[in-house]
C-alpha cells in the first residue's frame, strides 16, 4: 500500500468509481494548478471493492459542478488545518455550462462554433439534459 501524507488544507474527492479518477482530474483542469495534487487509482475499498481518490492541497475554489455529472456518487471532504471540516455528497447539477455538447445533428451548435452552451437537467435518473438552443435531450457520458 502506498502512503500519501495527510492533507493540511484543500479537498479530498473520495469514493470515485475506479477508472473515473483521471477523467475527473482532466475535467477539473487539475493539470493547470501549481498546488499539490495526488491521484490514487484502484485503491482497495470495502464498499466499492476498488475506488479512485484525488487529494488537492489548495486554497483555490474548484467548480464541483462537473463532478456531479461524471460521478454523482463521489464524496467531497474539505480540509482546513489538517482537519476535515465539511463533507458533501454530490447531486446532478441543474444547469451545466461549457462541458456538454448537444447530440442533435440538426442543432446549430453542431455547425457553428458556439462556446459555453447551457444544458438544463430534465431527468435525473437518465442524466438527461435539455440543450438551450434546440431543446433536444442529451444524456451525459454519451460517446462523442
Amino acid at each position, binding site marked *: 500500500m502506498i502512503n500519501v501524507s495527510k492533507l493540511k488544507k484543500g479537498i479530498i474527492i473520495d469514493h470515485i468509481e475506479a477508472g473515473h479518477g483521471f477523467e475527473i482530474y482532466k475535467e477539473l483542469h487539475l493539470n493547470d494548478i501549481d498546488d499539490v495534487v495526488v491521484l490514487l487509482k484502484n485503491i482497495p475499498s470495502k464498499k466499492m471493492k476498488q475506488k479512485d481518490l484525488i487529494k488537492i492541497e489548495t486554497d483555490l475554489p474548484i467548480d464541483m459542478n462537473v463532478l456531479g455529472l461524471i460521478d454523482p456518487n463521489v464524496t467531497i471532504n474539505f480540509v482546513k488545518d489538517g482537519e476535515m471540516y465539511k463533507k458533501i455528497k454530490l447531486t446532478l447539477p441543474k444547469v451545466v455550462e461549457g462541458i456538454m455538447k*448537444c447530440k*442533435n445533428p*440538426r*442543432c*446549430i*451548435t*453542431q*455547425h*457553428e*462554433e*458556439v462556446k459555453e452552451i447551457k444544458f438544463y437537467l*430534465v431527468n435525473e435518473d437518465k442524466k438527461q439534459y*435539455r*440543450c*438551450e*438552443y*434546440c*431543446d*433536444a*435531450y442529451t444524456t451525459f457520458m454519451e460517446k462523442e
Partner: protein
Amino acid sequence: MLKGRHLIEPGDFQIEEIESIMQLADNIITNPKGYSLVCKGKLLASLFYEPSTRTRFSFEAAMLRLGGEIIGFDDPNNSSVSKGESLGDTIRTIECYSDIAVIRHPREGTARLVSKFAKEMPIINAGDGGHEHPTQTLTDLLTIRKYKGGCDNHVVGVCGDLLFGRTIHSLVKTLNRYEGITFIFISPKELKMPENILHQLNPDSYRETTNLDDVIGELDILYMSRVQRERFVSEEEYLRLKDYYILDKKKMRKAKEDMIVMHPLPRVNEIAIEVDDDPRAVYFKQAKCGMYVRMALIAKLLGVEDNND
C-alpha cells in the same frame, strides 16, 4: 412591454402579451389605414436561409403595409454566408443597418443563437429546422380566436408529421398554456410527438393514436400538417409515410358541424382539394391572419403601435 424583445419561441412571451398582439391584430384588421405609416423610416432585415413563400411574403407584406421598408436575402448563396461568414458576424453587421430582423434557418436553435449577438435589434424566429415557428403559432391563435371565439376549452386534433413539425411543436406548447385544452395526437408511429414536448404536457391532457377516423368526431379543431420531404434522410421512408393521412369529404362527414380545419400550408396531398369548399376549412383564411398578426408583432417589438392615426 414588448418593445425591443426577441421572439424565438412562444414561451418568450406571457399569455397576456400574446393576447395584446392578438388585440392589436384585431385593431389593424378593423382599421388598416390607421396603421399604414407607423413603421415609416424603419427597416426590416429579412434573412431567409431556407425557402419560404407564406412566411417571407407575409413578413414583407406586413412591413410594407406598416409603411416600413425591407432589406435581405432569400438565398444565402447571395450573401457573405457563401464566403464562410459566421452567423454572429452576419447579425452584428445587419444590426448596423436595420431596426428589426426576421430569420429562417434550417438548423435548430439558430434564432436563439443569433439573438445573443443582437444588442438592440429585435430578432424574430421565422422557423429553425424542426424546432419552433412562433409566428405561425400567433397566426394559428388569431385564427382560432376568430373562428372559434377564443383559445380556451377545445379538443384539438393534431395530425400528420408530429416529429419534425415545428409549427406543431410551437402551437402545442402554447395552447397548453390556455384553459381546458385536450390534445389528440394523430400520427404514424415513426412521426410521433417528441418526448421533450410530451414531457411539458399534463399526461391527462393528451392521448395518441394512429387513426384519424376514430377520433375526428370528437374534435373542435383539426390541425393538419404536411409530411416534410426536406426533413427525411431516406427518400424511401418519406414516400412510405407521405400519404399516410388524407382528409377528404368522407372523413369530414364524421366531424362536428362547427369543427375547423387548419393547416400551416403548403399542403401536398394531406387535404383533398374537395375539402376546400367546406365552410369548416379555414386554412386560406389562416394565411391572411398571418399577415395581420405579423404586422401587430412588428409594431409591438418596435414600440410604434401607438403611432397610429
